[in-house]
């Protein structure tokens, strides 16, 4: 799941304050699940913005509209019907959703209400942890299901840096377990330490180019 958090209210307010009619679009996908950008949060943000702007003598309350997923065109037809009535659109989706929305309505100023933070898991209700950097070269099979790119402060892939504390914590943050300590421990328990004895060559950091992937079942459909 993509996890996001709401931007500071002042920052959002500054983005929209010069517009007369603003539509705040929520997303029923990931940002709804992490309690940041769903229908309920759209209503809350609109109320917060109205109150904050009122203090500056401005009367503006954005309207709200939530679609199932902002990152998929199939969910847009109803929004298409009303989007033109607004001067600007605020999005409570992740960065991908904001861009999809902005591409869909290129003549409209589109603003993000959230900061997209990471790809993570639900540790508990309202408690999320980053577990994947979408590096496009998954090594979890070799590292006992613990991601060294995400969970090591230096994203090392050939063992620890030497800064592991005696109780297996990271030198950068005492609250963070050293990923390589955890990998070593788990591989040892699984009797698979040979996995990390070989030297892993430098990674191919491919995230400088925009990722695109067509599922193999659909290759024919999109073939040019």
């Amino acid at each position, binding site marked *: 799941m993509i996890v996001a958090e709401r931007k500071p209210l002042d920052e959002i307010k500054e983005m929209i304050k010069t517009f007369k009619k603003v539509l705040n679009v929520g997303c029923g996908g990931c940002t709804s699940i992490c309690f940041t950008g769903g229908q309920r949060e759209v209503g809350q943000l609109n109320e917060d913005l109205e109150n904050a702007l009122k203090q500056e003598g401005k009367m503006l309350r954005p309207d709200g509209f939530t679609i199932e997923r902002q990152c998929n065109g199939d969910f847009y037809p109803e929004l298409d019907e009303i989007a033109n009535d607004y001067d600007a659109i605020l999005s409570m989706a992740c960065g991908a959703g904001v861009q999809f929305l902005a591409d869909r309505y290129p003549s409209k100023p589109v603003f993000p209400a959230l900061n997209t933070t990471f790809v993570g898991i639900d540790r508990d209700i309202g408690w999320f942890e980053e577990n994947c950097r979408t590096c496009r070269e998954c090594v979890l099979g070799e590292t006992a299901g613990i991601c060294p790119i995400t969970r090591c*402060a*230096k*994203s*090392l*892939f*050939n*063992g*620890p*840096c*030497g*800064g*592991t*504390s*005696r109780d*297996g914590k990271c*030198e*950068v943050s005492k609250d963070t377990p050293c990923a*390589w*300590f955890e990998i*070593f*421990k788990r591989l*040892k328990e699984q009797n698979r330490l040979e996995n*990390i*004895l070989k*030297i*892993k*060559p*430098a990674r191919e*950091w491919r995230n400088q180019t925009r990722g695109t992937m067509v599922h193999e079942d659909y290759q024919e459909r999109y073939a040019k």
Partner: protein
Amino acid sequence: MSFKDQLHSGKFALTAELQPPKGTDPSEVYGYAERWGGRVDAILIPDLQNGIMRLGSLSTCALLKQKGIEVICNLSCANRNRLALQSELLNAAALGLKNLLLFQGDPPSMGDHFDAHPVFDLDVMGLLGAAKCLREGYDLAGNDLKGKPVFFVGTQVNGAAQGPQLDLELTNMEKKIHEGADFFLAGSIYDPGLFENFMKKAAHFKVPVIVGITLLKSVGMARYINKHVEGASIPDAIIDRLLRAPDKQNVSIEIARDLIADVKPLCQGIQIIPLGWENLVIPLLDRIGR
């Protein structure tokens, strides 16, 4: 005798660390280096240590080399990608700097530009591998080089590791040797017992290990190191000596002298790390008879 010949011949090596200036004025560095030059076998110039922006190791080393001082150039993965690292290695070779100490490096979040983006494009194993490739005449992309660099390559090891970390450290040590490590620098050692335990397991690698001896300035510094520097373990006995001593500088020298005496039979060299007390290096050399 070069630093490499020194270690290869089995003659005990003595080195000292000297920070480059924060700025372009090398006069202080020249002053210390000239005073130490005849009495230590090499001077190590750190590369952006602790993420503090300074004059680089490479240019400082080149300046000192011009004065006939044997230097060890330090390079870390924290702030350069693989192009810059390889180029820096070639720069070093072109300037006649053969002794290298290759580190993982400190993340910028520890230093004075804490918002900087950490690079770590290569890890230390990758950096060692890059130096190995270059020595063999090609770069990491497999392209041939015109002129092969000659290096004597060292890297870091935690000589105070215990328990599972010691197993990890030894595994990594073996990998580092495979990637061309000619010698190791074992960070700061404060507990000779831990280092002895480490060397019992590491001696069979038969690769020289140099032990870092840091000049402890105060009880506060010792406690800070124990709390915040991983792998560091300053015994209570040392802290007590610092606590009781009226002359902190003198006891700091005595502690370093005693540590050197304890670890000398176990290792192939010592590196003095003055951490701001560069003026005490000569008195320490006097005490250890150098």
